[in-house]
């Protein structure tokens, strides 16, 4: 079983190498409130003049996977067309009491918590249909969380190309270096999706890594 699964993954990796697709599905992953939807909005605004959805300070605002097709990114004469897949935040626990702090009724908080659990499952299932991952981490937070470790482990196991986006570098206590030391084997691009800082470097990395 393990041998077959390994063989299947290797074949998929070789298939990806040999038959480069015209369009790549790139998933935006990360824990809740890392800035995934803000980054998706920034990418869409920069290249399509549109947005994906509304970000919020309330965790689990995105509870369904959102897909926007045909985002053409052009950097240094290189063009890559991607489908952007914005995913719900991954978590190992969801407590409806956390939503009550934001003024929701108990019924509303429970409904949101239930939708959030479904969103986590959907995000994990999408991993099998992607060609590359942008893993968004909040650069002001400790990167060594179980969710980050699990996502990186699963991306490595699937041999998917990965860029770690160290987000929120506009905040004073941000430390992309901490993320780099936690995951030294991966490319880290520090950005502020909200303020649009260093997005050129991210687009260059996307074109090089996924193009």
């Amino acid at each position, binding site marked *: 079983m393990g041998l077959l699964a390994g063989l299947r993954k290797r074949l998929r990796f070789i298939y990806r190498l040999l038959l480069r697709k015209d369009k790549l599905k790139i998933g935006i992953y990360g824990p809740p409130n890392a800035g995934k939807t803000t980054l998706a909005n920034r990418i869409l605004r920069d290249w399509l003049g549109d947005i994906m959805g509304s970000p919020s300070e309330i965790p689990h605002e995105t509870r369904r996977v959102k897909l926007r097709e045909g985002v053409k990114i052009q950097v240094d004469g290189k063009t890559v067309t991607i489908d952007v897949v914005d995913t719900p935040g991954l978590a190992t626990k969801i407590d409806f009491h956390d939503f009550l702090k934001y003024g929701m009724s108990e019924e509303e908080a429970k409904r949101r918590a239930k939708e959030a659990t479904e969103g986590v499952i959907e995000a994990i299932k999408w991993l099998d249909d992607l060609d590359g991952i942008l893993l968004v981490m909040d650069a002001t937070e*400790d990167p060594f969380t179980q969710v980050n470790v699990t996502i990186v482990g*699963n991306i490595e196991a699937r041999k998917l190309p990965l860029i770690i986006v160290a987000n929120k570098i506009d905040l004073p206590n941000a430390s992309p270096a901490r993320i780099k030391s936690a995951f030294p084997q991966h490319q880290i691009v520090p950005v502020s999706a909200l303020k649009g800082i260093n997005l050129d470097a991210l687009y260059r990395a996307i074109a090089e890594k996924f193009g």
Partner: protein
Amino acid sequence: MGVQMNLVSKERLSKMGSMEKIRMILDSVKEGKIVVLETGLTPEEEAKLIEQTMLEIDHENFIGIEVESYPCREKSVFSKLFGKKQGRLTVIGPANRLKTLEKQEDLIKALIT
């Protein structure tokens, strides 16, 4: 009242299938126990554990799990051949009882309440 800890050996884990491990973990954690796995789970098993946890959250008695583990080591010759990554020591408990205090590459500090 004390907290029961189940320390599961590498030998026992090696005889169990993925779903068997996940079932054993969730059954124990839902009873308030802390589970320590000598060799941990593979990344795929960790993802399955999260999926199954989400399915079983009831928003009243069970709000999820807290998992503490180290990142996988560099691949061994065996894992390079067979494409499997070996997990490392992992502690899993109910989210309302086990709390991470500090986590580094080679040190995890956690609090059990």
